[in-house]
């Protein structure tokens, strides 16, 4: 009656052997090369468009693109599960430190530019705001649309989640007006929505709402606000032209990070991204080409 133990032992052993054999890398060299591109939700559509075009021209290369946020992509780059991290903000100091601890030196590539559009419902009569007014709206100093020349309606503030590069950029550039010592925070009742689509969906149907989003994601059924740096300057609508002549104040660079200087197929891909052919796609998607 003491025999069952070795029997079970062999059962388990064979199961483990099977699992390990399934995990071991196959010895056959794969005919295709893979690039794993992860990161910013702002860039994901652009990255997808690039990847599709590039794969048509280079059928031997597979590029998989996933979103999740700039931080998610950089974390994946540090953890080694992504070759290319797209980010709508610069890499943070602590992320560089974390990467160096893992023996990775992140290298930055500017791949396009993006304007952040401030959007409201089509029914909202307000169409111009100064940066100061937007800051006051989001910090909670302005609570009603009538204070900025609109109807008597409460303001519902929409923002991306704190893991979004767009959120941090908006906090630094708009809420804090680019001032380093300014410690203004988002009003506590700001709605933090997990996706660009969530913001657009709410603005589309709610005349009380104000939101912000990358220009490439703003559809035609919401209204873009013309923005001025101060009250006696011109109000400017976001577009490729106004971003490149620097008259639109809320525009930023978009990045891709690699672990160390890129080599081989990764280098070819990044070089292609900066080519006129790939930058043409940038324009088609509503972003701003870098040249």
């Amino acid at each position, binding site marked *: *009656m003491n*025999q*069952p133990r070795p*029997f*079970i032992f062999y059962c388990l052993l064979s199961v483990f052997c099977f699992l390990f054999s399934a995990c071991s890398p196959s010895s056959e060299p794969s005919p295709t090369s893979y690039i794993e591109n992860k990161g910013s939700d702002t860039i994901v559509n652009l990255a997808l468009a690039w990847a599709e075009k590039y794969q048509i021209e280079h059928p031997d290369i597979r590029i998989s693109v996933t979103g*999740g*946020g700039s*931080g*998610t992509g950089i*974390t994946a780059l540090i953890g080694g599960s992504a070759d290319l991290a797209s980010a709508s903000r610069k890499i943070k100091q*602590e*992320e560089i430190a*974390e990467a160096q601890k893992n023996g990775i030196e992140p290298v930055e590539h500017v791949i396009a530019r993006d304007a952040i559009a401030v959007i409201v419902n089509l029914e909202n009569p307000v169409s111009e705001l100064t940066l100061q007014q937007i800051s006051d709206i989001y910090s909670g100093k302005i609570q009603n649309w009538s204070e900025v020349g609109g109807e008597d*309606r*409460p303001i*519902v503030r929409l923002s991306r*989640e*704190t*893991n979004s590069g767009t959120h*941090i950029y908006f906090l630094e550039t708009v809420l804090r007006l680019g001032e380093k010592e300014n410690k203004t*925070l*988002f009003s*506590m*009742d*700001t*709605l*933090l*929505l*997990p996706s660009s689509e*969530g913001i657009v*969906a*709410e603005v589309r*149907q*709610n005349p*009380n*709402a104000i939101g912000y989003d990358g220009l490439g994601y703003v559809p035609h059924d919401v209204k873009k606000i013309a923005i001025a740096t101060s009250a006696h300057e011109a109000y400017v609508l976001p577009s490729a032209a106004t971003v490149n002549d620097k008259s639109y104040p809320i525009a930023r660079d978009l990045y891709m990070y690699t672990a160390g200087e890129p080599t081989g197929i990764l280098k070819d891909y990044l070089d292609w991204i900066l080519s006129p052919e790939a930058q043409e796609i940038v324009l088609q998607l509503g972003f701003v080409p870098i040249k």
Partner: protein
Amino acid sequence: MEKSLNWRETIITRLIRVSGYSAILFVAAIFFFLLKEGLPTLAEVKLRDLLAVRWYPIENYFGILPLITGSLIITVGAMLIAFPLGIATAVFISEIAPRWVREILKPLVELLAGLPSVVLGFLGILVLSPNLRLILDLPTGLTALTGSILLGGIAVPTIVSIAEDALDSVPRSYREGAWALGATQWQTIWRVTLPAAKSGVLTAVMLGIGRAIGETMTVMMVTGNAPVLAIKISSIVSPVRTMTATIAAEMGEVASGSVHYHVLFFIGIVLFLISLAVNIAASSVVFRAKKRAERILS
């Protein structure tokens, strides 16, 4: 022949025993992991800062009170909706509906339980929240109430399915006894069948609460996620942020080992303790009910 039977018997018994123990092992391992990752919070963040009302982790504001109240208000709201609806549906299916209706209804309700929560979330964003805003004249439709209604919808199938099983297993002789005493159908249901199935019904409600408080995707999509302290009556029609949505939204971003990372795990511990408390409370009620039944029988 007999020997090989013994062999098989022993193996099967052991396999079953191992899977039984493994459940305990997994729960213990998960709890240990939560403690290990979450407890450093208490050393890194002062308790006073932890019990503050502002949650803005990228600037080191780690007040978790808004998140706890957010989860609680949505769960309570969901239960206020799901409890009467779920029990009433279960009673209807088990006691009142004719056989053919019952055979259609029960699978349909169970099908509802399999509906992915992200689909419900989309319905919430596109249909429920715009209409709630117009009907109740709110600034926005992304509120705790929207979350409660959808979570109620998620919890109902769980409650119905388990409560109906419990009602169904009440011996027929109980009902016949009540009818023989001249009780109406309503009196039989309310005074005899439901009390007899009490422990099963309680289990159903408990699992419903568990489902509601742990649900993530739907609440993240429809409650607006604004970390506001939800302690007023009017909070039910304001945006709130739940513990689950916070963990889901922020976990991807944090550098592992950072203060923010530890606080997120600490929230996980709080969530774990809350479900533990719900479980203990419910099972103690069930236990007491059983003891009383035993007393009467003996």
